[in-house]
C-alpha cells in the first residue's frame, strides 16, 4: 500500500492545495480547545487526533449562501426588476481529515439533494459543491464515548463518500483510493510504498434503530408524554442540528444592500427553534420542545428513510459531545425502541 509519514502531511496538503482550497481539522487560536474544519494554509498545524466540534457539511451546505441577487431600477416604461442567479461554477475543494461518519454523511445528503436533473427535488448549489469536493478520510482506530457509527453495518470500515482513505500505521498513514479521483491523488509522487499492515479499526457503540421507522409515525408519535419526559432538560437551542453532518434544513430571506438592490439568501435553520414552524396567524404546529424534538427524531429515523432511503444520521456523536444539557440521542433511541 501507499504510505505517507506523519511529518510529510504538510507536503501532501501543499500538493492538494494545487487542486483548490484545502480544509482540514485545526484548532483556532483563542477558541478554548475547539477543533474545527478550517481552511489550511502552509504552516498551519493540523489536528488529526481529536474530533471536530462542527461537521464538514458547510463545504456542501454553507451556513449561509446567496441564491439570487436582484435590483430594481426605473425605466421610461416604469419599474424594472433584474434577477441574477448565483454563480454555480466552482473548482475543486479538498476536505482532508474527515472521519468515516463525515464522509458517509455526504452520501446520506446526496439521496435528497443530489438527485439527477429532472427529478422533482433539486438543489443546484449542493450538487455543484458536492461534485467538486474531494474527500480524504482518516479511518478511526479509536472512538470516544459518543461515537455510535458501528450501529451501521459497515461501521468504521465504511468508505462511502470518500475518495481516498488514510489508515494510521507506524509513524504515518497508509492510503487507499476508493474512487477514480482518489486514484488520481495516489498518483502524486509524494507517497512511499510500504508493507505495513492496515490497523484494526475501532468498534463503537451500537444503537438499534431499525424498528423505529414505523413506530415513529405510529405509537410513538401519539405518545407526547414520552417526548416530554425525554426532552425535559432540553433548552431548545440549535446545537445538535447545526453540528449534525446530516441536518440540512434552511431558512430563506431577503437582504437589501441599498434601497434598490439586494440578495435572496438561505441560511441553516433548526427544527428545534420555536420560530421555525410558527405561522403568521400565531398558530404553531410544533409549539413545545417535545413536539419539535419528536419531529427531529422522526425526520432522522423515519421520514427520511421512508422517503429517501438512508437514516439521516451517521453516528458521529457530535450532538452528544457538546450538548449544553447533556442530552444523549442514544438514550432517546433506546428508550424509543423499548417503548
Amino acid at each position, binding site marked *: 500500500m501507499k504510505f505517507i509519514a506523519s511529518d510529510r502531511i504538510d507536503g501532501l496538503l501543499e500538493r492538494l492545495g494545487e487542486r483548490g482550497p484545502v480544509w482540514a481539522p485545526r484548532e483556532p487560536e483563542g477558541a478554548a480547545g475547539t477543533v474545527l474544519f478550517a481552511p489550511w494554509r502552509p504552516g498551519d498545524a493540523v489536528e488529526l487526533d481529536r474530533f471536530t466540534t462542527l461537521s464538514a457539511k458547510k463545504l456542501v451546505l454553507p451556513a449561509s449562501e446567496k441564491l439570487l441577487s436582484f435590483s430594481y431600477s426605473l425605466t421610461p416604461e416604469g419599474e424594472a*426588476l433584474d434577477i441574477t442567479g448565483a454563480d454555480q461554477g466552482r473548482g475543486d475543494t479538498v476536505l482532508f481529515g474527515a472521519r468515516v461518519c463525515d464522509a458517509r454523511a455526504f452520501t446520506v445528503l446526496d439521496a435528497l*439533494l443530489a438527485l439527477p436533473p429532472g427529478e422533482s427535488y433539486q438543489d443546484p448549489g449542493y450538487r455543484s459543491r458536492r461534485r467538486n469536493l474531494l474527500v480524504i478520510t482518516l479511518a478511526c482506530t479509536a472512538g470516544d464515548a459518543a461515537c455510535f457509527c458501528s450501529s451501521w453495518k459497515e461501521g468504521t470500515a465504511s468508505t462511502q463518500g470518500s475518495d481516498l482513505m488514510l489508515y494510521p500505521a507506524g509513524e504515518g498513514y497508509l492510503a487507499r483510493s476508493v474512487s477514480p479521483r482518489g486514484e488520481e491523488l495516489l498518483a502524486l509522487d509524494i507517497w512511499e510504498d510500504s508493507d505495513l499492515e492496515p490497523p484494526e479499526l475501532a468498534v463503537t457503540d451500537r444503537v438499534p434503530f431499525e424498528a423505529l421507522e414505523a413506530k415513529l409515525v405510529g405509537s410513538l408519535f401519539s405518545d407526547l408524554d414520552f417526548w416530554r419526559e425525554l426532552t425535559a432538560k432540553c433548552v431548545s437551542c440549535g446545537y445538535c442540528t447545526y453540528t449534525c453532518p446530516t441536518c440540512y434544513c434552511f431558512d*430563506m430571506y*431577503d437582504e437589501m444592500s441599498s434601497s434598490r438592490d439586494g440578495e435572496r439568501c438561505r441560511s441553516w435553520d433548526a*427544527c428545534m427553534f420555536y420560530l421555525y414552524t410558527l405561522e*403568521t396567524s400565531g*398558530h404553531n*404546529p410544533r409549539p413545545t420542545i417535545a413536539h419539535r424534538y419528536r419531529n427531529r427524531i422522526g425526520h432522522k429515523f423515519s421520514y427520511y428513510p*421512508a*422517503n429517501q432511503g438512508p437514516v439521516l444520521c451517521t453516528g458521529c456523536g457530535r450532538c452528544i459531545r457538546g450538548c449544553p444539557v447533556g442530552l444523549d440521542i442514544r438514550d432517546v433511541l433506546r428508550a424509543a425502541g423499548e417503548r
Partner: protein
Amino acid sequence: MSTIPRQGKKALEPLRPEKATVVDVIRETHNIKSLRVVFDDEELMTSFTFQPGQVGQLGVMGAGESTFAIASPPSQREYIQFSVMKTGVVTTAIHELAVGDRVTVRAPMGNHFPVDRWQGKNVLVIGGGIGMAPLRSLFLHMMDHREEYGHLQLIYGARTPSDICYRDDCRDWKQCGDVDFITTIDTGNQDWEGRVGLVPAVLEEEEPSPENNIAVTCGPPVMIKFVLESLGKMGFRDEQIYTTLERRMKCGIGLCGRCNVGPRYVCTDGPVFSLKELGELPDEM
C-alpha cells in the same frame, strides 16, 4: 397523488422565481386583496398550465415570498390570481403593490384536487373566509366543465357581510341557476339577504346526501374541524372528503424542512389531502 414538478427552463433552478407584473388589484375586504399577475415571459404565460388546488409562491423581492393558493381557474389564461390576507412581512409588502409593480412567482407547485376522478359525481364545496381562494379556482373550473359533474353545491361563510370575497363571482353563481350557492355569515345586518349562522350549522340544515357526493372544504382550522364532524354525521366517508393544509413554507420544493406532517411535505405532497390520507398521517396539526 404525486407532485407535479415545475416545468420549463427554470425547472433546474427551482428556487429562482419568474418575474411577473401586477395587472390588477382587487380589494376584497378590509384585509384581503386579490392580485392578478402576468409572467413577463410571454412564452411562459402562454404555456402556463395548472390544476385547481395547486399553489404558487408569490413574492416581492426584498420582502420575500410566501405560498398562496392559485385562485383563478385553469381556463383563465390571461392572468394568475392570488388572494392575500395582510398578516406578516411578505403579505404587507404584497398589499402595498399597485398595478404595474414587479413581483415574482414560482408556480405551479404541489398537488391538486383530483377533479378528473370526480367526473359524474356531485360536488359539495364548503369554504370559509380566505379559504375560498383554492375553492374559487376549483368551482370556476367545474363551472367551465359543468357537464362533467352532477349537482354542484357551494356553501360559503364569512364573519360579516363585509368579509365576503369574490363578490362578482358570488353574484354570478347566485344568478346562473345551475348551481346551489349559499352564503352565510356569523352575524348579519339589515341589508344582508343571505343566511345567518355558522357554516357547520348551515351545512347540517342543508343535509346534503353523501350518495355519489364529494365534499371539499377549506377555511379556518376551527371551521374545518366542525365541518368534518358534520360531514361525518351525515354519512360522508373519509375518502369522499377533501381539504387543503396550510403550513409555514419557505422553499416550496420539499427541501427546507418545515412544512412536513410526519413524512409528508405539504408543499410537494399536498396541499390537497383526502380525509382518508390525513387519517394515515401522524396527527400534527
